[in-house]
C-alpha cells in the first residue's frame, strides 16, 4: 500500500465571469511508496502547495481523489491525522503561548507522551527559548518548533512543505539528519522544495512538478545524471597547454582557450576526478570554478526543451545546497 496515492487529482480555480480559469494542479497521479523519502520538486507556483493542501484536505479537489496511508483524505480524515506529521507552508503557531506550550498542545492533541527535552534538542531549540512566547521567535526558530510539532507522536508519514525555508545552514543540516533518521525508522517522508540541492541531499526518489503537472519521476541518481548532463567545470591552468582530460567517460566536451579550460561533464561527480587527474599529471591549477545545473536546466533535460550541453548556469557549486532561501542559491528558480 503506497503512503500517498492520488488519482487524477485536479484543482481548477474559477476565474469568475471575465477572468480565465486557472488550473493549479492538472490530472495528477502521484504514488509515494511506503518508507521512501520522496522529493516533490518544482518552482514556486508549480502547484506543490495546492497539491499538499488537497492531500491534507485543506482544499477540495475539482476532480480526482487522494489517499494517505490507504485512506481517502476527505471521507476518512479522522483515521489519517494521528498517523501523519505535517509541516505545512504558510502556517503560524500560537504566538501568545510559549514554544513549550505549543509542543505540549501537539502532544495532547495526538494523545501521546513526549520527551520534550530530547525533542527540542533534536530540532536544535534551546530550553530557555522554548519557555518564551512564540511571537518573539525568529523565522528559523519557529520553523524548528514547527518541525518538532510535526514529529510529535512518531508519525508514519511526514509531509514537509518547504521545510528548509527560514533555516540557517546549521538548521538545514539538522533537518537532513532528522529526515534520514525518520526514514531509517521506516517513516515515509514527503519533502517539497523549490531548491534542487535540498531534495537531492535526502530523497530516494524525486517527482518534478511544473505547471500543475508531474513532468518526471526519477531516482536521485537519475536526477544527478540529468544534472550532470549540464555540469561545467572551468579551470585556469598556470601554463597554457592541452592536457588530456577527455579520456574520462563522463567528460563530454573540452574547450581550450589559452590557459582556460572548459570541461563539460555528464555526471557531476566527474568534476572532482578531472581536477584530481590534472593535479596527478603535474598541472598547476590557479583557479577552479564550477557551474551546476539549475532547476530550470533539469526541467529542460526532462522535458527535452533545451540543449543540455549549453547550461544557462546556476550558482556556484560546492555549497551542497546549504544556503538560505533568501539568497540566490544553487538550482533556485526565483
Amino acid at each position, binding site marked *: 500500500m503506497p503512503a500517498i496515492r492520488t488519482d487524477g487529482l485536479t484543482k481548477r480555480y474559477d476565474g469568475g465571469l471575465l477572468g480565465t480559469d486557472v488550473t493549479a494542479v492538472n490530472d495528477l497521479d502521484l504514488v509515494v511508496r511506503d518508507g521512501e523519502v520522496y522529493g516533490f520538486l518544482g518552482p514556486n507556483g508549480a502547484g506543490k502547495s495546492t497539491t499538499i*493542501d488537497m492531500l*491534507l*484536505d*485543506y*482544499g*477540495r479537489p475539482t476532480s480526482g481523489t487522494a489517499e494517505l496511508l490507504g485512506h481517502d483524505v476527505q471521507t476518512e*480524515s*479522522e483515521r489519517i*491525522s*494521528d498517523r*501523519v*506529521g*505535517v509541516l*505545512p507552508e*504558510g*502556517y*503560524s*503557531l*500560537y504566538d*501568545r*503561548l510559549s514554544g513549550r506550550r505549543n509542543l505540549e*498542545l*501537539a502532544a*495532547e*492533541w*495526538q*494523545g501521546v507522551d513526549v520527551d520534550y527535552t530530547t525533542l527540542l534538542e533534536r530540532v536544535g531549540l534551546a530550553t530557555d527559548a522554548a519557555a518564551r512566547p512564540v511571537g518573539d521567535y525568529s523565522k528559523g526558530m519557529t520553523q524548528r518548533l*514547527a518541525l518538532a*510539532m*510535526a514529529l510529535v507522536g512518531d508519525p508514519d508519514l511526514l509531509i514537509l512543505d518547504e521545510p528548509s525555508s527560514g533555516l540557517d545552514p546549521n538548521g538545514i543540516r539538522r533537518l537532513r539528519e532528522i529526515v534520514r533518521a525518520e526514514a531509517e525508522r521506516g517513516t515515509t517522508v514527503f519533502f517539497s522544495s523549490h531548491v534542487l540541492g535540498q531534495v537531492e541531499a535526502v530523497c530516494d526518489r524525486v517527482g518534478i512538478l511544473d505547471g500543475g503537472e508531474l513532468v518526471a519521476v526519477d531516482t536521485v541518481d537519475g536526477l544527478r545524471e540529468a544534472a550532470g548532463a549540464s555540469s561545467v567545470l572551468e579551470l585556469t591552468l598556470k601554463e597554457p597547454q592541452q592536457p588530456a582530460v577527455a579520456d574520462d567517460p563522463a567528460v563530454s566536451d573540452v574547450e581550450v582557450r589559452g590557459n582556460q579550460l572548459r570541461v563539460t561533464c555528464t555526471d557531476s561527480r566527474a568534476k572532482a576526478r578531472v581536477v584530481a587527474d590534472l593535479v596527478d599529471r603535474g598541472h598547476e591549477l590557479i583557479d577552479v570554478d564550477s557551474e551546476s545545473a539549475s532547476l530550470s536546466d533539469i526541467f529542460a533535460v526532462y522535458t527535452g526543451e533545451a540543449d543540455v550541453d549549453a547550461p544557462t548556469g546556476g550558482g556556484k557549486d560546492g555549497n551542497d545546497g546549504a544556503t538560505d532561501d533568501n539568497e540566490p542559491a544553487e538550482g533556485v528558480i526565483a
Partner: protein
Amino acid sequence: MTLTQVAQKDFEDAVRSRMVWGVISVFVAFIGFVLLVAIGTSDSADASADLALGMIALFSQLFVPMVAVIVGYMSIVGERRSGSLRVLLSYPHSRRDVVFGKLVGRAGVITLALGVGSGLSMLIAGLVIELPEIGSVIGVLTSITLFGVGFTGLAVGISAGVRTRAKAMAVAIGALLGFLLVWDAAAAGVYLVATGSLPGLEAEAWYFLLKRLSPVNAYRAVAQGFVDGRLQSFFQLGIEDVPADTTQDQLALSNRVDGELPFYLSNWFAALTLTVWAVVPSVVGYVRFERSDL
C-alpha cells in the same frame, strides 16, 4: 473528544487577548464613573443600590455585544488567515471540532470577562453605595452572560463563514449596529406594512415577539426580570406611536398587549432566543466553512 481540546486551547489563547480586557476595563471604569455621578446628583439615597444595578444592566446593552464581537469575530478567520488553522487541522481535529470547540472556548472567555467586568462593577456599587440584593445581582449577571454568549455565537458563526478578516469585521459590526439601531425601526416598519399603522401603546403580540427576536431586546426582556423599574432600550428611537407623557410603568409589556401574555413573550422564551443566537449562526458558519478551501 477533540472538541474539548480545541475549546481548552482556544480559551487559553484568547483569554490573553489584551483587547478583551481593555474593553472590560473601560466598562468597569465607565460604570464606576456613572455611579459616582449618580450619587452626586441623586437626592433619594435609598434607591441607589437598585439604580446601580439598573445602570449596569442598561449599559450592558452596548458593552456586551461590543465585547462579544471582539471576542468572537477573529476566532476562526484569524487563524485561517494567519495559518495556525493549518497546524490545528493537521492534528486529529475535524472542522466541526474547530468551529464548535471555538464556540465553547470563546463562550468561556466572554463568561469570564463579563463575570469579572460586571462583578467588579457591582463591587464598586457596593463600595460607593450599598450592595444590591444578591438574588438580583445573580439574575442580572446571568442575563448579561447569556447575552454575551448569544452574541459571541453570532460572531463565531460570522468568523467561520467568511474568508477574510475585513469581511468578518464588516459583517460583525454591521450586525452590532443592526441590532442596536435598525432592528426596532425595522420591526415597526413591518408592523406598519402589516396593519397600516405604527405600533401604538397597545399593539399586536406578534410585534413584540418580532422585536424580541433581536438578541439585544431578548437580553433586555431577560434582565428586566431582575431590575427595579423598566430597563430602557439604550437607543430610544421614538418610532412607535406612543404619547409623549406615557410613564415607564405604562410601557411595561403586560400593559401593551391585550389579555394574558402569550408564552412567546415570557422571559424564558427570551432566554431561549439568546441560546438560539449562540448556536444557529455557528451552525450556518460551520456549513459554509466545511465546504470551502482554507
